[in-house]
């Protein structure tokens, strides 16, 4: 996928920049993107390692089993193929819980672990199976209870009521989540 999209983006951009006269901006963008990646990875490195360590403790306790039990009915509807895989469905529900709490830095390491375990059981290593596809889909839909980042941006910009958007966010996020799940279920039968 990225083998096609990535060169397409770059080729289109370079050609268009010659036509639009933005070639010097593009030149700067090439070098700034390398710098931006390093900056992001350095900030990611600290929080990722920290959460990985903390979550490693959580995995070794019975805490996750308790939260998993609570999510179990939902997970088995979304991931029928994971019925007999206790470890993976545990990691999946942990990832979902972390996402819902807005712990983005916590959900990613767990999510990567979950999809790596799913890949080990995957028959065709070059293609996503249904569970993996559904897992990525619910991660892109971001079910979040409290949109902390936006609320903090809004309050920094001097909003009279920064949390005014919470209800709207719930409505929009549930609509998006349902779309992802329904489309995922329907399309996995045909594609």
């Amino acid at each position, binding site marked *: *996928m990225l083998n096609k*999209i*990535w060169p397409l983006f770059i080729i*289109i951009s*370079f050609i*268009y*920049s010659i036509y639009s006269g933005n070639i010097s901006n593009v030149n*700067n*963008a*090439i070098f700034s*993107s*390398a710098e931006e*990646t390093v900056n*992001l990875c350095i900030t*990611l*490195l600290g929080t990722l390692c920290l959460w*990985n*360590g903390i979550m*490693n*403790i*959580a995995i070794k*306790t019975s*805490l996750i089993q308790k939260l998993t039990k609570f999510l179990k009915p939902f997970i088995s509807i979304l991931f029928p193929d994971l019925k007999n895989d206790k470890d993976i469905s545990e990691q999946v529900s942990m990832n979902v819980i972390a996402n819902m*709490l*807005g*712990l983005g830095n916590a959900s*990613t*390491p767990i999510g*990567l672990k979950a*999809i790596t375990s799913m890949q080990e059981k995957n028959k065709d*290593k*070059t*293609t996503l199976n249904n569970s993996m*596809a559904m*897992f*990525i*889909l619910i*991660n*892109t*839909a971001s079910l979040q209870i*409290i*949109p902390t*980042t*936006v*609320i903090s*941006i*809004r309050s920094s910009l001097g*909003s009279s*009521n920064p*949390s005014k958007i*919470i209800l*709207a*966010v719930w*409505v*929009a*996020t549930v609509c*998006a989540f349902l*779309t992802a799940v329904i*489309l995922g279920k329907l399309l996995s039968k045909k*594609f």
Partner: protein
Amino acid sequence: MNIINYISNIAVPFSILLIIIYGVIEKNKVFDTFLEGAKDGLKIVYNIFPTLLGLFLAINVLRESGVIDFIINFINPFLKLMKIPAEILPLALLRPISGSASMAVATDIMTKYGVDSFIGLISSTIMGSTETTLYTIALYTSAIKVKRIRFVLFAALMADLVGMISSVVFWQIMS
């Protein structure tokens, strides 16, 4: 408002506290377990760095070349038909691609049109209710080196679209 602030401030420390207390009660070697997990974090960053570098390059040249502006001008007439404010279009297009870029654009829009204005509220709602879809897909698929992602990109982008339309409709009804 204060309660929500309090909840978002307490969420992270509370989770860490809960996990460590559980570990201690169940007689885990908590520090050794922590170190073991943290080491795995290094591997994850090592694995995703090349992917991120490639994606940042593509997104930045796409934005700086003017291609994104070109697309915005092209789609604008259709948006007017659906009464969707064109001001939010850069956000809608960048949101699935880049978290940092869309955050910059959203902040810019809220500053320009007012954080509590119709457009400001829509932008906030879009930021809060959608995820950096392309980044998320790239992150997970590149970690396991999968080539065929089937319907995932299409379904995820449709979900984003529905989330954005819901954001607009919600504030159209409310105002």
